[in-house]
């Protein structure tokens, strides 16, 4: 009994300790962000490796998610003779939920894990300590550019995901299943609101990008400098950021859409 309580307490203490370390780390990275201005190339390089190179998976996933939405939505709506609302269905689903959530999940798997592994390995091979020896602040040199790149990339990727997904739904709905093209777009424009739907979707993806890249950079930076530690950090990045995305999505949806 006391053993179980002790374990629970230990878990709680560890949890809050990590949360605290993570928050301090976040604060330090945010303070280091302005120092990127004269060395903007560092951030551009990171946008390349975590943003541009995630483009392929985002486009392919978006296209297929959109096509599946087109098929499934059509099958349900046609029973009610409402297949012309397919455009609304596809657009609202993607813009409000699937665009931000799925692209953030894919980003966590494709880029977050890579960032953690890279920073973890830098730590394990003592490159970070080496930088410190040379009076180069690894927070500014390593953490801040990746952080900025993540925050910039995720909303752009989510927008691309939604746009490609709507095109996929259009291809299936209008091209294959014969929904009227005019009704598809005009009903969509009638029901999708710029502020309530699109802007809220963008806000969601900014929040997700912030959280995912925070977790990824922190896990790498905080990892145990062994091969086991790096692999653990990579796994934790994917698991924790996926859970954070899904949990935050629920909270944000409850706050935004009533």
């Amino acid at each position, binding site marked *: 009994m006391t053993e179980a309580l002790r374990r629970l307490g230990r878990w709680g203490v560890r949890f809050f300790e990590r949360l605290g370390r993570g928050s301090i780390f976040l604060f330090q990275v945010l303070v280091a962000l302005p120092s990127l201005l004269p060395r903007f190339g560092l951030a551009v390089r990171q946008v390349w490796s975590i943003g541009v190179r995630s483009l392929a998976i985002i486009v392919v996933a978006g296209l297929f998610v959109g096509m599946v939405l087109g098929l499934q939505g059509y099958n349900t709506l046609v029973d009610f003779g409402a297949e012309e609302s397919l455009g609304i269905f596809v657009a609202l689903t993607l813009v409000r939920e699937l665009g931000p959530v799925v692209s953030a999940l894919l980003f966590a798997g494709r880029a977050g894990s890579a960032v953690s592994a890279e920073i973890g390995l830098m730590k394990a091979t003592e490159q970070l300590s080496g930088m410190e020896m040379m009076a180069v602040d690894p927070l500014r040199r390593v953490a801040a550019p990746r952080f900025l790149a993540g925050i910039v990339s995720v*909303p752009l990727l989510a927008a691309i995901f939604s746009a490609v997904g709507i095109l996929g739904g259009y291809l299936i709905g209008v091209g294959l299943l014969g929904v009227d093209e005019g009704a598809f777009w005009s009903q969509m424009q009638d029901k999708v609101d710029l502020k309530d739907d699109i802007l809220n979707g963008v806000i969601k993806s900014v929040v997700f990008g912030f959280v995912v890249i925070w977790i990824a950079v922190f896990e790498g930076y905080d990892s145990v400098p062994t091969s086991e530690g790096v692999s653990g950090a990579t796994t934790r990045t994917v698991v924790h950021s996926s859970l954070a995305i899904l949990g935050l999505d629920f909270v944000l949806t409850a706050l935004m859409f009533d």
Partner: protein
Amino acid sequence: MQSKTMEVGVGIFVAIGIAALFMLAMKVSNIAELATTGGYTLKARFENVGGLKVRSPVKMAGVRIGRVAAITFDDKTYEAVVVMDILPEFSRLPKDTSASIFTAGLLGEQYVGLDAGGEDRFLGPDDEITLTQSALVLEQVIGQFLFSKASEGN
């Protein structure tokens, strides 16, 4: 990866991302409508608005000429006050225009339908439409039908 190619790649990525956002805004959302300004509002009182909602369409002859901007309750007359935003190009609605609440299709959404009258003076900003007809509440209609059937039987 050469630095220049990389920068070009990042530039293209950012451009595609912004283009996607632009497409979402222009092609998917209602921005075209938000951009039009200079419309005016009309008011109408209904005994019952049924399932009418804010942002429901306002139509005349089946053409959408505006949207419901607000629905409030007047606690003196116990009526619903519906405020409608009318697009600026429809500024020639006769004074004796009447408003009814219709349902699009059997299960569709409800909308305000305006019927033009014959007067040659036009409704201006913040004017009130006095001739109104409430939403059809299905239960009431069935109730009336049964009632009239029953009284026929006697």
